[in-house]
């Protein structure tokens, strides 16, 4: 049963062949139009199951609509369009098609009604994103892509085990609310959290994302973690553990971003930080909190895409990625500077930007639930966002010192993508009703009260004061900060090579010992077989005949006795 509705995810995934095969303007048209077609199709998906089929004795629902699904599918399609526009001048012929498979799979997860479909798109997403990384063509990207794939296949196996267990236990494949009350559900939760960038494996994200191309990282920032946010909203709302997981991620992101030198790794840590806000909201689990988490995922995809577009423009035009080598770019890249700064203000939830109308709902949910500790930590983290992303990123990239670089603005298509996303950041911030209308629950919240605006301004501006007062402590150095990925980049390889060395020497010793023994036995055989040895003597024929005669006579004698 398909009801004549096309599946937006399949349209984008199969359509990814178009930009791979076409050339010139037709290719450009396909890159921008295809995600918009998918977006239009997302809005044709009605509530309830749309596509159903039998698979392995189960009725699966590859296409199912409700407000939450459409919200995430909408922003994924929008991001694919914006990212595609930004990537129009990308020479790699693999990146955009791979990104469309990636985005299409994310839409597929958002519109899936059952866990089997979720898993299938989940794995396809890992393949698409790995190809996006890979297509950058650098040696470091290739190695990062391998590490990235390893973590995601591991997460996929855990998720698969959980889903299998869930189906065996409940007999149902439907993707609905679960609680971490069985091994299977824990495994599903862990599988989702791996993709969200949650501890202890958060390090895969800042390890992999900065290795994408100038346009690839824009795609990478949007889908994997936010699909996980969607899956957690659908599967585990109100799971208290998630509050603490989210708060950990929030502070992990801030502290590591403060120490980071690579501009796109700063923004990658800040993805973990922002997803932390969403996961904390999912953990609180009230309607206000879930609305806040969903809205924040929506606005976050836009402003993080914008921030990474501005960083990608700088990377393309200067071929530099380290803050210690950048600075002073506002002189020759004013448009990129303005757009990047708007993204930075939006991520900081400055009034009149999109972050302000979304993130504040999560804080409000903590207030409504009288969760003082959670609220204090969320407020502290909001201040920290301004510190590590809101000021640090634009300051070190566009202002700071004069690096002597005078790069031109990027190509027109990149400028247009940045301007469109910057406009969206402001438009949602000024006029939040259209976004609120898309949220899963009715919104009974007014972000623009004098009290709220003033409190937020105090918080942010004094965080800014702290930044500039303590600037000497924040001076960038060409360093990295060790993270959990040290385990699989240093410790495991070192352990593996020492095990290998031990095995090699043990094998050598065994071979040597064996050779010694064989030599010894050969020696003793040789000694016994020497011509002058007792057994090697040859007797004369005469004595042989005599002895035979003696034996025969003895035999005859014995016979007659």
């Amino acid at each position, binding site marked *: 049963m398909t009801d004549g509705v096309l599946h937006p995810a399949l349209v984008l995934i199969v359509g990814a062949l178009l930009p791979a095969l076409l050339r010139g303007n037709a290719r450009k048209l396909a890159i921008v139009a295809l995600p918009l077609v998918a977006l239009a199709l997302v809005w044709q998906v009605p509530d309830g199951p749309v596509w159903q089929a039998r698979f392995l004795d189960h009725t699966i629902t590859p296409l199912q609509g409700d407000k939450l699904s459409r919200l995430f599918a909408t922003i994924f399609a929008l991001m694919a369009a914006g990212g595609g526009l930004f990537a129009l001048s990308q020479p790699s012929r693999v990146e955009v098609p791979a990104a469309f498979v990636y985005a299409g799979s994310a839409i597929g997860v958002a519109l899936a009604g059952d866990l089997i479909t979720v898993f299938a798109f989940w794995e396809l997403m890992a393949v698409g994103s790995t190809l996006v990384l890979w297509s950058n063509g650098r040696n470091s990207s290739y190695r990062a892509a391998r590490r990235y794939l390893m973590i995601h296949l591991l997460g996929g196996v855990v998720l698969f085990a959980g889903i299998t267990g869930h189906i065996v236990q409940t007999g149902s494949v439907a993707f609905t609310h679960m609680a971490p009350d069985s091994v299977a559900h824990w495994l599903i939760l862990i599988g989702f959290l791996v993709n969200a960038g949650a501890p202890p494996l958060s390090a895969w994200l800042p390890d992999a994302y900065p290795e994408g191309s100038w346009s690839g990282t824009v795609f990478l920032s949007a889908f994997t973690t936010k699909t996980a946010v969607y899956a957690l909203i659908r599967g585990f709302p109100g799971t208290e553990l998630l509050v603490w997981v989210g708060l950990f991620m929030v*502070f992990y992101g801030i*502290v590591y971003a*403060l*120490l980071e030198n*690579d501009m796109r790794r700063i923004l990658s840590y800040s993805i973990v930080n922002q997803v932390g806000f969403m996961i904390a909201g999912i953990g609180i689990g009230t309607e206000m909190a879930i609305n806040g988490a969903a809205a924040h995922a929506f606005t976050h995809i836009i402003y993080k895409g914008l921030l990474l577009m501005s960083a990608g423009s700088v990377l393309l035009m200067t071929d530099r990625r380290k803050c210690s080598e950048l600075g002073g770019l506002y002189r020759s890249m004013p448009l990129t500077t303005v757009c990047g700064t708007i993204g930075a203000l939006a991520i900081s939830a400055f009034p009149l930007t999109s972050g302000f109308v979304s993130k504040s709902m999560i804080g409000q949910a903590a207030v409504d639930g009288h969760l003082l500790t959670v609220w204090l930590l969320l407020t502290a983290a909001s201040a920290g966002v301004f510190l590590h992303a809101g000021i640090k990123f634009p300051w070190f990239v566009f202002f700071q010192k004069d690096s002597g670089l005078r790069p031109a603005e990027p190509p027109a298509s990149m400028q247009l993508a940045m301007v469109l996303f910057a406009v969206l950041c402001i438009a949602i911030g000024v006029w939040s009703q259209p976004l609120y209308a898309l949220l899963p629950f009715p919104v009974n919240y007014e972000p623009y009260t004098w009290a709220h605006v003033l409190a937020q301004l105090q918080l942010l*501006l004094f965080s800014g004061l*702290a930044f500039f*007062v303590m600037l000497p402590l924040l001076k960038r150095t060409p360093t990295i900060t060790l993270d959990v990925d040290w385990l699989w980049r*240093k410790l495991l390889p070192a352990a593996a090579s020492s095990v290998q060395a031990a095995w090699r020497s043990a094998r050598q010793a065994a071979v040597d010992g064996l050779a010694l023994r064989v030599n010894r036995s050969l020696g003793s055989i040789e000694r016994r077989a020497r011509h002058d040895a007792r057994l090697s003597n040859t007797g004369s024929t005469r004595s042989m005949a005599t002895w035979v005669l003696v034996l025969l006579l003895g035999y005859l004698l014995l016979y007659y006795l």
Partner: protein
Amino acid sequence: MNDKPHWLDQPRNLRLLWRGFIVVLVLTVLAQLLVDLHPHFEIEAVFGFNAWFGFGVCAAMILFAKALALLLKRPDDHYGPGND
């Protein structure tokens, strides 16, 4: 465009920006006298809560990060050249 320095490059304008920033900071705190912030938690009712809390936690986070860096900071070719 190289003849005239960018307005942000003139020390006079930078001083002006700093002064403007401090004036705005003071205004946001003073505005609290006019606007009721509807404090929900007790600690929120302390005067200028968001200002000193924001400044304090940011300073604390920077110091914490610096302390962590003593343990975990490495040169950026730690994992091999070109793979930082």
